[in-house]
């Protein structure tokens, strides 16, 4: 999921950085004292989730949790993902500093789409039907992962044209089990949050 350094051409890197600038700006603006601690907590969850791996074929894919971040943090998911990716690049050499823009965009846009899809359900049905809301959130985060995989595959298209179909197929197929597992995890977390601490989701 993290694109390493030295694969993508220059203009893709600059384009990715430019595209992720707007959500980042909006996210930093939306941060305030009330939700700072929450954002830091979920950013660290995202940071650690990338280390949990599910082996598929020659490559292996990891949990992403960007659906959960989108549902809980909303627009603030952008700075959370950006800072977590920056630290992953510095400490573990996952991804890289130059590909930070592209990677942030690939993970933030699906998170924001997930937020936009699940928000009406959380606002209106959270107290009435907690289980159904959790299931909807799980399904939404499942598709968030697949959307992220698709975006990453599209970014890799710019790198080498002849290998695109193999790489893209591999990426999306290898993320299907991850998506399912992540959907289940997200559904359970949302269910728990609705029961224990509703204010977090509002």
């Amino acid at each position, binding site marked *: *999921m*993290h*694109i*390493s350094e*030295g*694969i993508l051409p220059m203009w893709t890197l600059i384009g990715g950085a430019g595209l992720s600038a707007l959500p980042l700006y909006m996210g*930093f603006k939306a*941060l*305030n*004292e009330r939700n*700072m*601690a929450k*954002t*830091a907590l979920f*950013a*660290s969850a995202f*940071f*650690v989730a*990338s*280390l*949990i*791996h*599910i*082996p598929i074929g*020659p*490559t*292996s*894919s*990891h949990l992403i949790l960007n659906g959960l971040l989108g549902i809980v943090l909303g627009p603030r998911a952008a*700075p959370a993902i950006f*800072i*977590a990716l920056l*630290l*992953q690049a510095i*400490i*573990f*050499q*996952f991804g890289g500093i130059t590909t930070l823009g592209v990677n942030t965009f690939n993970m933030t846009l699906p998170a924001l789409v997930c937020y936009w899809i699940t928000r009406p359900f959380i606002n209106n049905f959270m107290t009435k039907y907690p289980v159904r809301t959790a299931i909807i959130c799980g399904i939404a985060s499942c598709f968030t992962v697949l959307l992220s995989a698709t975006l*990453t595959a599209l970014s*890799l298209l710019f790198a080498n044209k002849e290998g695109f179909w*193999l*790489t893209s197929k*591999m*990426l999306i197929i*290898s993320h299907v089990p991850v998506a399912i*597992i992540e959907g289940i995890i997200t559904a359970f977390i949302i269910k728990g949050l609705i*029961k*224990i601490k509703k204010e977090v989701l509002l």
Partner: protein
Amino acid sequence: MNIVKIIILIIKDLLRAFQKNSFYRPHPITLILFSMISMTIIMGINPNNVYSHRIMAFASFDGGKIDIDGYFSNGNKIKGANVIIKDNDGVIVAKGATNKDGKFSFIPQKSGNYDIIVDAHGGHIARTNISIQLEESGSSLTAIKKTPNNDNGIEDKNINELNKDDKTILRELRGIRQEVHALRIEYEKVKLRDIIGGIGYLFGIFGVITIVKKIRR
């Protein structure tokens, strides 16, 4: 309190969770048990594959051929990764895939610097380079062996001794190389210390953002 009682308690507690119109606060024992189970499930999907994301490539030269090994950052071997080897001028010298031990080897034709790229699909790529010095006419060992020197018995004996020494040296070198290899893998692994440190940095950064926002207002 015996185990049966604990199990009954947990089952009752879980049943309480599914009752309608009741605010469910789990019993501490249930909470601990479930957090333990979920941790083992997450880590237990494949205990060897936790923390394997980055890939690494190592190259070593043993006088005749260059050996390339591909590893995930937990030490697992990469099977079927594409390998591309370029020389100083950026010309592709060799191309291939790693075998099921994660190995690929090729025989270089001239000395110089070689760039090695291991691509494990899906945007995972590792680069390494090796600079080698080929000897002009085979290795020194074979040069000595080929020297025709049959009329002097003493020198013959010397050659045999040298041969034996060379063999032991080679054996020891191989052992040292393997040890260096293992150490490098160990060094490149993701460590718990890094993870906890990273979480600390994260909270620190968000703390700085809070302070900056407060000063601005």
